């Protein structure tokens, strides 16, 4: 089995009295499309910034493709591309000049590198903006430029920190298509996002961080199977009462959504509904999704 793409060992970070990370142990497999989820302030960005060397952990070690982020930072940074969350301005240089400068920092130049930059501009639909400065770019274009800048040195691991925050639907789709292509080419991709359906559709493995701690880390399928609940929608007429009323988690326009323990059968629910005089017209079982799992693991007191 190959070494992890990124490995965190007991990584903790303290800001004053606040522990932003409380000892994270995590191994992100090579070639995975990895989701790093958590509420705002959970510690995701701190973890990513520590991986990129932008934050120095108070304790613990991080390796990227086997290279220690602190001791062997040149090799670890060559292996890592980071698309930061914040949009960035650089008033003095054009898009192409910025890509050339970033290449130069990595020691890359010449005809092959220029061809790669042309390809990046093309694939990210920035060719016609190659000679304009960043303040002339829209938010979506700046986001694409950040992705291009993170890819100039052909990293083996790409970190996308909230890449679709504030991005319109069309651009979001094109970004995910591009990310899937990179992943299909063998790149390890680490994604943080607030859009859980995105993580569910893209990622094959997911970690959830809550208040600086790793709550769970598993394959997506395994994680979804961990949901303690299932949801059932009954469409019909009447009014639930008694014990049945206590199981209603949402009132729908034409029925009710019930939350049942995952192992509970439907028979008892249907019997209770009929006992309340409900005329059942339709029945839907809602499979657990990532949002339910996420919320159940990160609810207050979880």
């Amino acid at each position, binding site marked *: 089995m190959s070494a992890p793409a990124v490995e965190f060992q007991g990584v903790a970070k303290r*800001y004053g009295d606040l522990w932003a990370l409380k000892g994270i142990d995590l191994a992100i497999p090579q070639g995975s499309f990895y989701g790093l989820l958590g509420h705002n302030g959970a510690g995701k960005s701190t973890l990513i910034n520590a991986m*990129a060397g932008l*934050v*120095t952990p108070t304790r613990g070690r991080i390796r990227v493709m086997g290279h220690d982020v602190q001791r062997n930072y040149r090799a670890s940074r060559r292996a890592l591309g980071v698309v930061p969350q914040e949009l960035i301005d*650089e008033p003095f*240089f054009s898009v192409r000049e910025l890509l050339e400068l970033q290449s130069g920092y990595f020691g890359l130049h010449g005809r092959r590198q220029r061809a790669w930059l042309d390809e990046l501009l093309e694939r990210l639909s920035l060719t016609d903006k190659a000679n304009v400065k960043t303040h002339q770019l829209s938010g979506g274009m700046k986001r694409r430029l950040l992705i291009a800048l993170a890819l100039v040195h052909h990293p083996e691991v790409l970190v996308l920190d909230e890449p679709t925050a504030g991005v319109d639907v069309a651009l979001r789709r094109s970004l995910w298509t591009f990310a899937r292509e990179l992943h299909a080419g063998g790149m390890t991709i680490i994604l943080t996002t607030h859009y859980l359906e995105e993580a569910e559709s893209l990622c094959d493995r997911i970690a959830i961080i809550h208040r600086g701690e790793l709550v769970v880390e598993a394959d997506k399928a395994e994680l979804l199977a961990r949901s303690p609940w299932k949801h059932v929608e009954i469409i019909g007429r009447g009014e639930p009462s008694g014990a049945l009323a206590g199981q209603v988690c949402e009132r729908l326009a034409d029925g009710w959504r019930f939350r049942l323990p995952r192992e509970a059968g439907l028979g008892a629910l249907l019997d209770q509904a009929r006992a309340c005089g409900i005329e059942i017209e339709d029945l839907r079982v809602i499979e657990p999704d990532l949002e339910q799992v996420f919320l159940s693991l990160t609810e207050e007191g979880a």
Partner: protein
Amino acid sequence: MNWRGLWTLFMKESRRFLSVAVQTLFAPVVTTLLYLLVFGQLLDEESVAFRGVDYAHFLVPGLAMMALMQNAFANSSSSLIQSKMHGNIVFLLLAPLSPLEIYLAFLGSAVLRGLLVGLMVFLVGWLGYGVSWQAPGWILLFAVLSGAVMGGLGIMAGILSEKYDHLAAFQNFIVVPLTFLSGVFYSIHQLPPVWQQASHFNPFFYMVDGFRYGFFQQSDVPLGVSLSVTFGFLALVSAINLWLLVKGVKIRH
């Protein structure tokens, strides 16, 4: 060493100031020449700083050095604070550049801008006042060392400042007073004894004095002292900067 990375950053920093040359090169030259015009004319009859050297001739190297120092400082400090404010410093921090490489690139560009501004001031002094030079090697050495010291102080100020206000305080309360009181406009022998003593605690004084030696082969303190103090101060500033960059103070969190 990542030489290509260092060179790229040096070129980036240099292209940055060259792209706004009116602001970064020509404006400081004009300001400095106004000093020359006003002080040179007003004080020429009154003051003899060095034996056999009239005041305007004495003043030109001092002003060239002042312009060099202030612009070397401005280059690195403003670039760093802007990078922090715009957020683009992140791309530097994500690159495989060592603290030493980052330091040398910023320093080199600061020295270049300082030399260009200082050279232009000197050229006007040469053409307008016929200022000549006795020991160009010393002139160049002190120009480069002083540019490096000031570029280094600019890096320090840029790293430590969290907003433009902090940088302005560093510039206006430390750099400008120390520059003006470094003997740019006078020889310290013209000062009362207490101020003569106080001037010896100003490291900028040794840079100006050593630089001026290259023009007149006269100085307020022995050349070796100026050279040692300037080298020593550069070593101190460099050591502090490298420590700040290695620790990531105010840059890496």
